[in-house]
Structures are given as structure tokens and as C-alpha cells.
């Protein structure tokens, strides 16, 4: 899922400084699950922002609504009426959600309330780690299901750099060496011979190298 984190109240205050009435829009999908932009987190930000602005002598009115998903036009309809009453919208969705709202309401300033960070997984309650950076050309079959493109600091495709210390990455000892993990996994699934196959240099064109990507699946068009 997409993992994001809330912006600080201080930063949010600077972002909406000039406005007197805004809409805080939460998103009920990924950011709720990663505890960043759901109904509760948006409420906390509302209370805190209202109090902060009153203490500054510059009160602000904050409306609040959480819709099912911000990246889907069908659900953005629910924002039309609340948006009409405010000067600006702060979206607590991921970057895609913020931009979707901005496109839907081209004459309203739309700001981001979260920092969108990565595609990841919940390791244990309240700890998420990045697993995939969306390179568009998945080679996980080659690496026993562990992605060196994302999880090796040097993005190596043909084995470890040799600098790891006690299974930790030499660039960041807080991270495990991805190639150590790949080796252990391929051994467990009896596919160690894959390590002998040479992986050619990565073609980054399917990734963001050429700019923002677009996908069309003709068989599904209406």
C-alpha cells in the first residue's frame, strides 16, 4: 500500500496561513490504513490547527470530510458541496489524491497535508518499510521475491558489493543487506543457480526516467 506521514502542524499552519475557512479532506483507503490521513488523524489536525490559529489571534474555520478514495472521480463528487463553502482545500490523501482534487477543483487552491513516501508493507504495528519503488519492469522472479532495485542501497543486480558488515548494509547499518536476504531466500527455495545468471543493466525507461508514466489497457476501455 501507499505509505505516507502527517505533516507537522507548524508546516501546515504556514501552508494555509492566508485562509479563513478551509476544508480538511481525508481519504479512506491507503492513508487510513497507514494511520496518516484517515478520519481520526484529520480530526486531530483540525483541533490542533484551530487552537493554534486562535492562539495567534487569527482564527480559522475548518470543515472536515473523509471520502472513500481521493484518486477516484466517482468519490470526488462528495467533495463538491463542502468545497463550495471554503476558500481552499487541504487534502490528506497521497500525492495522487491531492492532484486529483486539484484537477477537479481548478479554481480552488489545493494543498497537501501529508508527505507521501513509498510503496510498502506493515512489518509490525506502527512500523512500515519500503518494498517497491515502481520501476515498471519487475524482476522479482530472479531474486527470490526480494527486490534489490528498491532494497539494495546501490541498486546492484548481480550480487552483493562485498561491503556488508554482519548482514547489515555498509551504506546504512540500520538496513539489512538485500543481497544477504536474496541469497538466503534462493537457498531456501532451492534456486541458487539463478545467482549464476548475469542480469543485464536495467532499462529504466519503464520507470520514471522518461517522466510521468501513462498506462492504457485497450481491452478494458468502454
Amino acid at each position, binding site marked *: 500500500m501507499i505509505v505516507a506521514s502527517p505533516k507537522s502542524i507548524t508546516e501546515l499552519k504556514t501552508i494555509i496561513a492566508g485562509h479563513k475557512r478551509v476544508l480538511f479532506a481525508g481519504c479512506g483507503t491507503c492513508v*487510513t490504513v497507514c494511520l496518516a490521513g484517515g*478520519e481520526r488523524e484529520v480530526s486531530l489536525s483540525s483541533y490542533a490547527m484551530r487552537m493554534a490559529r486562535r492562539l495567534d489571534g487569527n482564527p480559522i474555520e475548518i470543515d472536515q470530510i473523509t471520502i472513500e478514495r481521493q484518486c477516484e472521480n466517482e468519490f470526488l463528487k462528495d467533495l463538491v458541496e463542502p468545497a463550495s463553502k471554503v476558500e481552499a482545500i487541504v487534502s490528506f490523501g497521497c500525492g495522487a489524491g491531492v492532484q486529483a482534487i486539484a484537477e477537479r477543483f481548478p479554481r480552488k487552491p489545493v494543498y497537501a497535508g501529508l508527505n507521501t513516501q513509498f510503496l510498502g508493507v506493515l512489518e509490525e504495528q506502527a512500523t512500515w518499510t519500503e518494498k517497491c519503488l515502481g520501476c515498471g519492469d519487475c524482476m522479482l522472479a530472479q531474486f527470490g521475491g526480494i527486490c534489490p532495485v528498491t532494497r539494495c542501497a546501490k541498486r546492484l543486480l548481480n550480487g552483493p558489493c562485498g561491503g556488508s558488515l554482519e548482514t547489515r548494509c555498509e551504506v546504512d547499518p540500520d538496513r539489512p543487506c538485500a543481497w544477504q536476504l536474496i541469497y538466503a531466500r534462493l537457498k531456501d527455495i532451492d534456486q541458487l543457480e539463478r545467482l549464476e545468471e548475469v542480469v543485464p543493466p536495467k532499462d529504466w525507461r519503464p520507470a520514471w526516467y522518461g517522466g510521468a508514466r501513462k498506462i492504457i489497457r485497450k481491452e478494458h476501455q468502454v
Partner: protein
Amino acid sequence: MARNIRITLEGTDVGAHLDQLIHATASHPRIKVFLKSDLVRISGQPGDFTSVLNVNGSETRVEHGVVILATGGQERSTEQYFHGRHRDVITQSKLESMLSGGPPHPALSGKSDPTIAMIQCVESRDAKNPYCSRVCCSEAVKNALEIKRRLPHSRVLILGRDMRTYGFREIYYQKALEQGVEFIRHPDDALEVVENEGRLEVEVYDVAAGRGRTILPDLLVLSTGIAPAETNSALSGVLRSALTDDGFFQEAHPKLRPVELANEGEFLCGVAHSPRFMDETIIQAHAAAARASAILSKAQLEIVGHMACVNPAECVACATCVRLCPYGAPVINDLRKAEVRGAMCMGCGSCVAACPSRAVVLQQQEREPFSAMLDELLVSGGSR
């Protein structure tokens, strides 16, 4: 403690009663006795507890519906007034065991008119142990009467700040006066014991006489009061049941739930709660048994209606509640939404506060009433 008492003030033979009770308990087909055992762990809920006992070194599991705590207390030990350092200073329990057939004290041997002085409230009703132990005055009177019965020419003096032979025990206080027992009332701190070449000298201010007096006892007996059992602290942790400032177990409510611990299904009686006479302990034990039977007699138990409930329309199945609940009550159901299994829910509300969509509510504890409550509480002249 009961083993140290031979006879009550009213004349009941405690030893015989105790032997009969032990025999009846050990031979009862539905009572299982674990001796030399400790409670290691307890889990579960009323009607369905599981305990792990350490029985003489090995672990045993027991399943049970209720807990009754009757772990008692102990006579407080002391080093005051030369106790432990002088042969002729003993405690009341030692005196009692002497009087009930034990070897006579060397200080009394050969004498037909010894002087025996008893000091009350030793290490009791002071800054460290502010509570009265209730039984010591009666115990002193009982032992004094017995001494007078055996040695009519002996001189027995009871020195105390007050005499608390309450209720019908007042009759025995009268009897003791008639038998010639001297009661000396003294203010706090107006009593001192010194040793003079091996000889004990008690100096006390006698309120009735209006002057100080010196007493030379052959035997000095200390009433030290009842201290909490040493195991209370550890047991309190295992049961998660609070102790009072004095170290005894705290009942759930002094008037409404006097024989229950705060946790449902757990009861207490006897000196584990506070110092008391044996007949009072027995009455309390009956009460605890009666309350415990209320749970044991039912085929089914009703649970309180404070249960968490998930609104599936709002739930995003993030499984935060599933991970959080200490009782494992929430699950993700076949409709891919969280659901709280009512029988396992204990109504703590942790899931309610954690749910990022605010999809869980605790029945009868919802959010809107809270806001209204807050508004009402902040009305001036309202709750003040």
C-alpha cells in the same frame, strides 16, 4: 496463626476445632488441597479461570470458576523493649503457647507470686503502623485471666493507651478487674523499659494515679499486633489486586462489596483483609463463600453490555484493532471487515481509541455524548 491459639476468650477449644476442620477438608471428595504451593499465574474470566501453581517445585494447571483469598497474616515481630535480647521479654503468642501446655517460662519457675507486665500497642498505632490490630487487648485479658486462674497470688498488670475489649468482650475486662488484674492507662510515649543489671524496670506515667510509677516485672509480655502476611506483596502482583497503605488486601468497596477484590470473580476473607477475631473471620468466610457461589451456581454467566461494535461501512480492514486487542476479540470476517466477537470483548475500548476510521464504538460510551458531557461539565455554577 490459628495454630498458636489454644482457646478463645469465650472458652472455645480452638485446637480441637481446627483438627476437625483440617480432617474434614482433607478427606472431602470434592476438595483438592495443594500444600507448600504458590500461585504463579492466573488468567481467564469469572467462571473460567486458569491458574498455574508451583506445587513444591513443579508446575500444575488448575481450572476454576472463582478465587477466594484467605492467606491470613502474622504476629508482628519486634525488637522494642529488649525483645530478642532479654530472656524475660516475650510476645503474647509465646505466652499463650506456654499457658496451653508448653514449658513454663524460667522467670516464673518456683514463684507463686510473680509479677507479669503486659505492654499493649507495641509497634502499633504509631507513625509506621497507624492501625489498631483489634485483637490484642482481648488476647491480653484472656491470658491475664488464665495466669490469675493458675497463680492466684501473681501480680498481673496491663499497660495500655486504651483498652479495646469491645462489645461483649467488655464482660471479660470486668472479670479481669474483679480478679485483681491492674490496668494502667498511660499517654503515648509515657512508657519506658530499662535494664538494670539484668533486671527489667518499666517506668510508666499512670494517668489514674496522676504520677509516674516503676514496675519490676519478672516477665514482660508484648502485644505487637498483626502484620500483613509476607506473601501479600508478591500475590498482589500475580492477582493484580491492590494492597492498602498498611499492606493488607483492599476490598472492592467497603460497604457494597466488602468480601470481594476489585477483579470480578475474586473474593477475600479473614486477616488477609484486616486483623480480626476467629469468629469474625468465619463470618466473613461464609460471606465470601456465599458471594462466590453466586457465580458457581449459574450454568451461564451474563456479560455486561459494554461491548465494542464495528461499523462495517466505515471499516477499512486495516486490522489495527485485531493487532491491538489484548483478548483477541476482533477478527476480519468473511465480508473482509473487522468484527468484534462479543463473548471475548471485555469492554476496555482500546480498539475504539485506536481505529483510524473511528469505525468502532463502545456501546453506551459513544462519542457524541462525550461532547455533550464536556459542555455540561464546563457550565459555571453547575458541578461546583
